[in-house]
């Protein structure tokens, strides 16, 4: 059986096209059922590539009028005025990147703490229910997060947190302006909560994949638990944890509904966390349905292209990292 499967794996030299052909056409020795299986699953895998390719092409073509009109200035333009057909994406790029990175900065330490506790320290009976609860956070629809943001989080930020920050740290540019509740700060907090379960659960899986021999070795050398985690477990899991972080970042970049409900939706670049901001995904969701002129529609599509590019890039990085973790030599099973 194994040898038959081995036959269908592309081998030998030649161009990739001839190798692909050989893989699918095969030789007479392959079982016909296996041949069909190969073709059907191959076809399914091909659709994914086809859909991605078709979408990229379509989005690119729809963006062409805007790309022709604005060129590179689109990326650095600060003005977004549909009335004048003047479009620049910088405030949205800034809002997307800053809100996502700040959310990461908040979520990563907490998520790592959760992961380390679940994988290394928690009593066995607690691990499953606690892990389940964390993952349940990911199942809450984003509109619920958004409504909670409007009616609970934002008023609390406005009345308690922001006045406090303004009084103590108001000399910093990050905490200046009128405390309004809704704004970049609310967006960052909502995003941080939303990406927490992704990072925490993937990191926990990565930590659990670290061979026990490393832990045993560290403990045998007289390490404390803290030293064992810090010096033995975390270094060998680091690339996987980085992958988890990038997955979380991907989610933060693409989140639309919850963010648009709390971020204030204002295309402005401001250093203050109190001020409103705007993200790429939000502006597309907000303005696409009613965009009237062709150039306007095209500019919105180009925002999609920018977001698409950033997301694809991060996904590739995440895949590479996870692939590397998969190749970490595994030792004996944990006792």
């Amino acid at each position: 059986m194994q040898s038959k499967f081995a036959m269908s794996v592309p081998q030998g030299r030649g161009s990739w096209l001839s190798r692909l052909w050989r893989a699918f056409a095969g030789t007479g020795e392959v079982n016909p059922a296996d041949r069909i299986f190969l073709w059907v699953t191959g076809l399914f895998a091909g659709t994914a590539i086809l859909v991605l390719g078709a979408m990229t092409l379509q989005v690119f073509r729809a963006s062409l009028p805007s790309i022709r009109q604005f060129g590179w200035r689109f990326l650095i333009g600060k003005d977004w005025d549909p009335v004048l057909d003047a479009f620049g994406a910088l405030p949205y790029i800034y809002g997307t990147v800053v809100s996502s990175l700040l959310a990461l900065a908040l979520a990563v330490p907490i998520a790592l703490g959760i992961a380390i506790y679940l994988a290394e320290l928690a009593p066995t009976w607690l691990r499953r229910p606690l892990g389940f609860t964390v993952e349940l956070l990911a199942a809450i629809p984003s509109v619920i997060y958004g409504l909670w943001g409007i009616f609970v989080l934002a008023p609390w930020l406005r009345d308690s947190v922001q006045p406090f920050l303004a009084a103590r740290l108001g000399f910093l540019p990050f905490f200046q302006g009128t405390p309004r509740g809704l704004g970049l700060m609310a967006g960052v907090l909502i995003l941080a909560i939303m990406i927490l379960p992704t990072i925490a659960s993937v990191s926990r899986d990565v930590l659990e994949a670290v061979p026990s021999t490393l832990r045993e070795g560290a403990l045998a050398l007289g390490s404390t638990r803290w030293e064992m985690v810090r010096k033995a477990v975390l270094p060998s899991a680091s690339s996987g944890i980085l992958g988890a972080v990038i997955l979380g970042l991907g989610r933060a970049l693409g989140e639309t509904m919850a963010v648009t409900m709390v971020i204030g939706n204002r295309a402005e670049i401001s250093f203050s966390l109190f001020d409103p901001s705007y993200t790429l995904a939000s502006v597309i969701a907000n303005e696409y349905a009613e965009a009237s002129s062709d150039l306007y529609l095209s500019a919105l599509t180009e925002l999609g292209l920018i977001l698409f590019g950033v997301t694809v890039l991060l996904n590739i990085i995440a895949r590479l990292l996870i692939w590397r973790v998969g190749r970490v030599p595994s030792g004996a099973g944990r006792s």
Partner: protein
Amino acid sequence: MNMLRSVVLGAALVSGGLSAQTVIQGAGATFPYPLYSKWISEYQKVDPKANINYQSIGSGGGIRQILEETVDFGATDAPMTPQERAKAKSPILHIPVTMGCVVVSYNVPGVSSGLKLTPELVAGIFMGQVTKWSDPKLASANPGVKLPATPITVAYRSDGSGTTAVFTEYLAKVSADWKAKVGAGKSVKFPIGLGGKGNEGVTGLVKTTPGAVGYVELAYAKQNGLAVAAIRNKNGKFIQPSPEGVTSAASGNEIPADLCMSITDGPGAKDYPISAFTYILVHENQKDGTKGKMVADFLWWAMHEGQKFAAALDYAPLPKDVTPKIEAKLKTLKFAGKVLITKK
């Protein structure tokens, strides 16, 4: 044998009758959706064969779909622009079917109702020139009302919408400054404030933020118990928004041939100034006789019997002087050169 034949024949007739039910597709504006959906369910009682499906995807989507001829009728709050009309393969008619208004709602601590605003104040607030509720200009428009020193937080619609189009069209009409710096449209670059997604987003902002002021549709403000401001009209009277004020604003105007008219800032004593028509879009030359007839009959019904459902949903019924013009317009709907409506 005979009986069997008749049973078969009967079954064939029944199934033929079922498949003959025509599905009419419509898409567009979200603002009139509650009324349209009421009309569609009521019209089913009038003509059981009429199966009308309306998707509230937004005015822009409605215009695009009628241009691409993927729907039998479109719907929009703002009339089609000349550029959009130029894209039409065959003439598209605007049929005004109902009207609505945009209200300025506020959340001022200590002022639960009765706020009055002049056009200059509305423009000033939304331009960011009037920044505190205790501003002397606000105080002089509201004698006897104790206004707090709370800063004003402006809330606007972040999503493109007919509501924004009507509101900014009004502001551009009453304020030269607004017209020059901001302009009018479904999405504009607001000089200050926070954007809320949808009527519900703005409502949420206004409700939870002390000092907030925003604009929403009348029905929305009423359902959510928001305080709404009386706006001074061209006649100098402060008018609380209501369907009557809108109907008043819509009547007594000169009606253009395409029936597309702005009714903001009307001159009448009872006119509520931020009012607007909303339109159904149909091709003048229908491509399908059955569907075309059904759409024409539905619109005819909507502008007559359908009007009595408007006020209960906070829409304004069509004024009497506009009705004959719409009737005449509906009578120009044709299939293969033949007029579809032969009533009266």
